[in-house]
């Protein structure tokens, strides 16, 4: 066990966990931020996607010791005031079905738009193909990203 200080959604959080614990389980079990989901535990599905210093990472395959001192953003912290344009686009396009993968999808899309405010279809496909959706919402995810892009991106 080690005392580790994390910066999550703008707040300093102290946790006592083994340094090899994946960030995912620290977020979910220790910090009770359950919007970030467990899907595969192997970086294959993207359900656990969060931002570390603005980049989309798979929290199931990122050790908590690797992110000390870095800025971590989860779905709960994506927007500080209400919903951001990306989340509004998700609602407008009625993207979710079961919804389980959607936190990860939105975090992946937000990281894409932050880097590339007006992605092409091909760029969307490249950025989003690491995220699996068993309900098959891909068409609508693409449309929502375009909509958010037109509305001013993820900010």
């Amino acid at each position: 066990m080690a005392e580790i200080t994390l910066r999550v959604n703008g707040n300093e959080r102290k946790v006592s966990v083994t340094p090899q614990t994946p960030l995912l389980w620290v977020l979910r079990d220790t910090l009770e931020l359950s919007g970030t989901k467990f899907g595969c535990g192997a970086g294959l599905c993207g359900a656990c996607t969060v931002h570390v210093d603005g980049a989309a990472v798979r929290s199931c395959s990122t050790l908590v010791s690797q992110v000390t001192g870095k800025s971590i953003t989860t779905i709960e912290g994506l927007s500080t005031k209400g919903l951001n344009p990306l989340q509004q686009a998700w609602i407008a396009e009625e993207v979710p079905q079961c919804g389980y993968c959607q936190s990860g999808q939105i975090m992946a899309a937000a990281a894409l738009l932050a880097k590339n405010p007006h992605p092409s279809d091909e760029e969307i496909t490249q950025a989003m193909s690491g995220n699996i959706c068993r309900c098959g919402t891909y068409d609508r995810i693409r449309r929502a990203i375009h909509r958010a892009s037109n509305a001013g991106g993820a900010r």
Partner: protein
Amino acid sequence: MNPVSRREFIGAGVAAGAGLVIGFYLPHRSSVGGGDFFVPNAYLKITPDNKVTVVVARSEMGQGVRTALPMILAEELEADWKQISIEQAGASTLYGDQSTGGSASVRSTWDPMRKAGAAAREMLISAAALKWGVGRASCKAENGTVVHLGSNRRLTYGQLVGSAATLPIPTDPPLKQAKDYKIVGIRVARIDTPSKANGTAEYGIDFRLPDMKYAVLARCPVIGGKVASFEDRESKQVPGVSYVGKIGDSAVAIVADSTWSAIEGRRALSVTWDEGPNKDLSSAVIMESLKQSASKKGATLYSVGDVSKVVGRRIQAAYELPFMAHAPMEPGNSTAYYQGSKCEIWSPTQVPQDVRDSAAQAIGLDPDQVKVNVTLLGGGFGRRLEHDYGVEAALVSKAISGPVKVLWTREDDMRNSTYRPASYHQMSAVLDAQGWPIAFSHRIVMPSINIQKGFPAEGGVDAEVKEEASFVYSFPNISVEYVMTETPIPLGWMRSVNALQVAFASESFLDELAVAGAKDPLELRLHLLSKNEDIQGWHTARMPAVLRLAAVKAGWGKPLPPGHYHGIAGFACFNSYMAEVVEISMQNDRPRVHRVIGAIDCGQVINPNILEQQIQGGVIYALTNALRAKITFDKGRVVQGNFDDYEPVRMSEAPVVEAYFIPSTEVPTGAGEPPVPPLAPALCNAIFAATKKRVRALPVLG
């Protein structure tokens, strides 16, 4: 589908001071026709604060029941949609069958939801008329209020519920006509969407109790194997691990203060397994035994004329499909709190009552001492028709005498699931001199899900196979047979169940017949559907309509971009009619699916947005099944483990899916599963169009 009789309907309740409460009955497919007494299993509640709550015993797994079901009720109630909310019912001894499956949620609730809404509306109108001392006929319900047409006075439902609750409940309230619908048939926004866009939606895996522990189980990797012994010294040294113990005969639980500690504790555990009778089992041996069984005559599912006496040009082919896994995104989990004389469970389940009864039996309580709460489900697809996670959670909670969440990892789910049965299909047909088929035989060889699970056979076979081996085409000679086999592989109902296997074989073979007889595949199907008749409850006239709609929208028969090819297939199941056209090109000998056009006739559409989601989702789910989904067994073990070797379709492979429906005021029928079966044959028919090579075994990518 069955209309609900009066005695099944309306059981009334006056909840003093709590507003108007009406209980009604939602039949499930399996319970229709059973029981002579009224047991309400859903409630409509209108409270003085003007809120309308519909308590429903159906699980939300993405198919939109939390929105679609209250829409049906709100329409008849003349409610303001903003007043409506839904409350999830847990397992109850009061309710009928609460299972969510068989694409049955809308079709089984259509009548009772409408009648409950209409009854409440009539009572509210009466209450207003009495209050104002005017005739009922001068009052009208609209938008959550009753208005007096003469004076334009208006009272909200909330203001009326107190007096409405004292009135008799009408047993046969008038129902609205489809042309007057204001909510049904509209793209009403789903109630659950905002919570799924901001991370607050709570699934089973997210539920937590104070001081709750976390557990994973080490299960025997060989099907049917048991724990011989285990060594837990190293496991217990993992920080956070508090308990290691045997659960049942075939698993060891590792309990810790976090999920990760439990997973690490399992890694450190050493178990010696008694691998049991299946340790040499392999997929190849299973498929070989299915092939051998194909020489046997099966039980007749459907027969016309005599296929054995037809003379002409004979065409034969055999098709095979592998075992498949549901793999919903939310891995298995349940939370349980055993407290001696009672146990409470929170589970993402499609079968809360089965979880209750099975858990009760496992931990030695009566069912009424076990409470099961239903959370949101992160996908279901039939996987959560099993009670396994809930029972495990109850057992582990009993073992540690405290609250615990049992979690399955992805590998646990892939390797300890129930699977869509593998199957083998012997097809045979005879063409006449003009190339039209005049005899069609389909021998289905497949283990039965229902018989393995202990449900009784009907006429010697699994009745669900008969239902899903539906046949809508007219031939002068038809034989559909089922050779029911057995397997030790645990079987489960997976989205569209047996219809997927049947449709792949029969709709691919029809394409072979079209090619052999030099007919256009669409033309052949329309020819076989040209008689307007009922075949085993299917109306042949509804099938050509969806085939034509899909064909027109796809541009069937018109020039495509160079290198692009079409394939078509249709299938009727879950009381609905579905056709799909798939457009592909071949890239490095692999199909690239560009566009899928789906057309459905599922009767009255409740919410076009949700229906479109079901078609888009069903097509993508079916595309994974067709391209790659294959569970294999070696030495009694599942070979695949995660999304690398059982890889669902990703955005990079996902086609554009266009969804169309036949406008209809017929009774609503299934929507969640019908989009699945036509996809694989339509895809493989397109591959034939492109390559002249027939795919007779799934998955396409081997």
